[in-house]
């Protein structure tokens, strides 16, 4: 933080200070918008006891799904784990803690964490298991669940383009949770396809302001091919 131009690093450099036990947000929905190179670097580094905050745990052999399969993850906070057989297995065996969050609530909790809100009231999940252990608040005769913010030590996100001051632009619905996570972690590492000059992204169409981004990693390669 506090640097005007953002450092462009290799994936291994970018994750070098992520310690065991870290809480890590990872962008993406299914195979879209996942920072694959950064995940591979986390695997090479062998970071352990991760609390993983991601919409899903992908497949066991892809992206952050591998982190779970490798036993690097202690706890998952997600809306869906159905595609990853190992997440399901470890969870059913009691070897992995999983906190299920409805996807819209997941988005709002991360946004609240990044935007300084103490929580949000949502009607989603009222009358279901999603309300267990949470405070219910009634307003004008309708019940809402009080959901609390999510934050992380590190956010690993994926965008299509960056410029040298860290502004990001996403393509397609690979955007998903990435802009939200960019505000909700102490250190934000963005994996991108290209790094442009300052001002080469139209200021009206910047999706994530550069002040939120700490490090840039240029993948240069293609996204995962499903």
């Amino acid at each position, binding site marked *: 933080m506090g640097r005007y131009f953002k450092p462009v690093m290799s994936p291994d450099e970018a994750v070098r200070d992520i310690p065991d036990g870290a809480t890590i947000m990872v962008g993406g929905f299914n195979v*879209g918008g996942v920072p694959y190179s950064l995940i591979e670097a986390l695997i090479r580094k062998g970071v352990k006891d991760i609390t993983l905050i991601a919409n899903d745990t992908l497949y066991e052999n892809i992206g952050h799904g591998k982190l779970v399969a490798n036993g690097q993850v202690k706890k998952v906070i*997600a*809306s869906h784990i159905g595609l990853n057989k190992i997440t399901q297995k470890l969870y059913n065996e009691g070897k992995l803690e999983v906190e299920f969050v409805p996807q*819209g*609530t997941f988005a709002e909790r991360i946004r609240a964490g990044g935007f300084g809100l103490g929580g949000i009231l949502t009607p989603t999940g009222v009358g279901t298991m999603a309300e267990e252990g949470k405070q219910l608040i009634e307003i004008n005769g309708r019940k809402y669940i009080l959901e609390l913010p999510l934050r992380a030590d590190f956010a690993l996100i994926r965008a299509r383009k960056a410029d040298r001051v860290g502004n990001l632009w996403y393509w*397609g619905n690979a955007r998903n*949770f990435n802009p939200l996570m960019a505000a909700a972690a102490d250190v934000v590492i963005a994996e991108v396809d290209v790094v442009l000059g300052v001002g080469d992204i139209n200021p009206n169409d910047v999706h994530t302001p550069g002040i939120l981004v700490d490090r840039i990693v240029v993948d240069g390669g293609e996204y*995962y091919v499903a």
Partner: protein
Amino acid sequence: MLPNISVDEAKVRIAKRVAMEFKDGDVANLGIGIPSMVMDYVPKNVRVILETENGMLGMGPMAKEGEGTSDIIGAGGVRVTVLRGGSFFSSDVSFGLIRGGHIDITVLGTLQVDQEGNIANWMIPGKLIPGMGGAMDLVTGAKKVFVATLHTVKGRPKIVKRCSLPLTGKGVVNKIFTEMGVFEVTSEGLVLLEIAPDTTLDDLREHTDAEFVVKEPLETMKGVEVDG
């Protein structure tokens, strides 16, 4: 007795019937399975804008083999296309649109649905726990929640008195479409609106665990062609 048709024929019948519920300009979010077949039967002059919860309005057909990108995918992970006039946005906006009542119709499959409009389709304790994904938000926020499902699974009714599985939403379902008929959930309970031409009321009662009343006059299920 269940209608004497194949599972595939039953699915097509359901998808065709649901397709008749759409009006020009409707915004819809379709789940996997039968719901994803619905668009094949919507007439060309009824322009339905499809939303995917990962952040797109104006979803088009699947990308051609070898084309497309993992940057533009449907909620099931398949590479799709975006139509002219579509848009992309982040997940908080996507679920803001969903929760805020800006989606006209969501069509979902289910494990169970009951006579009070409860729906259970996200987990089977001790067996299958995929997570709720976006389903809890969809059933809470969409203006109309339609369940499109085979009437039975392995002979067991899907429409029950009271869901035994953990709920996805409480009192949220508006209509249920099966190969045997169309039900509406009302404050008075479940009402049978339409019955398939190859089904009798006795058949329906036999394969439906839930209690329901029959609308007078009961209509024949629309769009169903029965041989001979």
